[in-house]
């Protein structure tokens, strides 16, 4: 599959946002991933052409970063944090359940192509452990049963919403959002903050401590 002209135009647009066009390479790789479902040789070539780099230079960058898949990704990326905090608090059990449900292991795609599983590193949500992500949206304080239910609903094509973000739409759509090429209209989807983010503010309220921002 090749990279369509519209995408090539978008790649050039990303490159134009920086004083030095090469700075756009990471967003560009997210964008080609959104088109083909992975960073293919064609995707690498399109980035190289836009930036006047060799394909070897682009491939060297693409292979450094774990978010770029080098084989066709599944429809939904499912990550389970198994770094220390999440693992101990239940992440290992969540991983076992999710892996059994999808029938595959780390960095593998389920037979029907629905799930792309990854044991992820710290997702900056230890307060919300154990954490699962679907297409990089948070599923906080999950349990093995809840995690499997999310996978069941995704498999059935039902709408699934992040606990701290919007509805999930697949790995390709997430890659496009991350590239920053345009607004996906989901900024206001999901809560502005959840109770764990508000824990300190609630503790202050309980103790009658007012805002300390100098009248702001």
């Amino acid at each position, binding site marked *: 599959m090749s990279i369509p002209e519209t995408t090539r135009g978008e790649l050039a647009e990303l490159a134009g946002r920086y004083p030095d066009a090469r700075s756009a390479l990471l967003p560009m790789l997210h964008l080609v991933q959104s088109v083909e479902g992975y960073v293919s040789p064609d995707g690498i070539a399109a980035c190289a052409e836009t930036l006047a780099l060799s394909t070897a230079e682009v491939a060297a960058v693409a292979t450094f970063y774990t978010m770029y898949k080098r084989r066709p990704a599944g429809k939904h990326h499912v990550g389970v944090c*198994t*770094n*220390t905090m999440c693992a101990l608090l239940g992440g290992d059990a969540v991983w076992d359940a999710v892996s059994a449900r999808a029938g595959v292991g780390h960095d593998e795609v389920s037979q029907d192509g629905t799930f792309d599983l990854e044991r*992820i590193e710290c997702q900056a949500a230890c307060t919300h452990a154990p954490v699962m992500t679907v297409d990089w949206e948070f599923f906080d304080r999950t349990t093995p049963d809840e995690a499997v239910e999310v996978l069941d609903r995704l498999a059935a094509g039902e709408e699934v919403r992040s606990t*701290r973000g919007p509805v999930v739409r697949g790995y390709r759509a997430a890659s496009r959002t*991350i590239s*920053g090429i345009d607004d996906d209209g989901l900024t206001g989807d999901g809560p502005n903050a959840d109770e764990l*983010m508000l*824990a300190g503010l609630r*503790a202050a309220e309980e103790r009658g401590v007012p805002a300390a921002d100098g009248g702001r």
Partner: protein
Amino acid sequence: MTLTPVLTAHWDESDSYTIGAYRRHGGYDQVAQGLAMDPDALIQLVKDSGLRGRGGAGFPTGMKWGFVPQGDGKPHYLVVNADESEPGACKDIPLMLANPHSLVEGCILTSYAIRANHAFIYVRGEVPHVHRRLRAAVAEAYAAGFLGRNILGSGFDLDLVVHAGAGAYICGEETALLDSLEGRRGQPRLKPPFPAVAGLYASPTVVNNVETIANVPYIVRNGAEWLTQWGTEKSPGFKLMSVSGHVRRPGVYEVALGTTMRQLLDYAGGMRNGGEPKFWLPGGSSVPMLTAEHLDLPLTYEDMAAAGTMLGTATPMVFDDTVSVVKAVTRWLEFYKHESCGKCTPCREGTGWIAGTLEKFEAGHGSEPEIGMLEELCGQILGRSFCALGDAAATPFPAALKHFRDEFVAGTHTPADVAFDPVAATVLPAGATR
């Protein structure tokens, strides 16, 4: 009382991430105020406040800004490190979700101070909702005239770009971040030269953490002395502290520096079993662990250093006695092994060696001589790589051994999961594990 809702003050308002909510509480009023000041006076103000970097190293912010050579004819850049991925740290991502405009306003003021017309926020790739909220905030700020050409008629121009990383912990290291932002593999540079002299595109660059920059509008509004009403002489101000682990109410707590872990535990509802922590880490997996005997130490840069650890990101992870120290440390080392960029041999080879040896202890197959070997390995890695990742990887084991040698000795004959039932450490409802 040491709770200090500043950055978090209005997170309970459902539109807190919008420009409307931010302006409702005086947000962006400081742009006109700041742009009317001499840039050097702005740098001096931040110097006077004593603000220290909130990304882990705690370097004085105003001093860092002051290192940028002025009148050098080169473009200057501000790069915000929003690559939060240190195990334990979960403060910048909540801030950017709930209050992204404080960061945007801070970028405007900081860029003006260091004479930068281009600023970048490097956000780790794996958080699309943060990208949405930040990009929307930047778009709102452009539309309101706080970004772009001739901001508020001041003659000052600023473009602010929200940039996406792609999954690499190492890019939280400032020079690796700069290489990554230049479209390269994220590998650290040898320092010196430091970024303030030769950073992005070999031009003078300030790299600051999200929370550091978000402090700036509040300091401009309220003055340097306002910040110093909290904390200590060496650690002034307040801090977002994310408390995770076996506490009843994990979450983000904004407190004065100098708050003790015991006070923080009280705010967090105490330990889930009502007891005391078995061990805790004040600021991420890269700082040495402490135990219950350290609960009354003030959480400041200097007090943590005196206790042989570091304040780091000030994001305490708290574990009760259901947890195997061997298992916890092994998992952290597997992380460092995965995230080592491979540039420096001691880190590339050493992280794998430590992790592999620790895995033997976790399985109950370690040996007494290997305890000594691990100590020597860590000692050989420390200080021998370009960046601090190697140092971080050499930190958890010696600290754990100091407090819990018995558990490593037990790892010569008993698997960690036998000594400590993994189900007991979870926070899952009863019967939830399969």
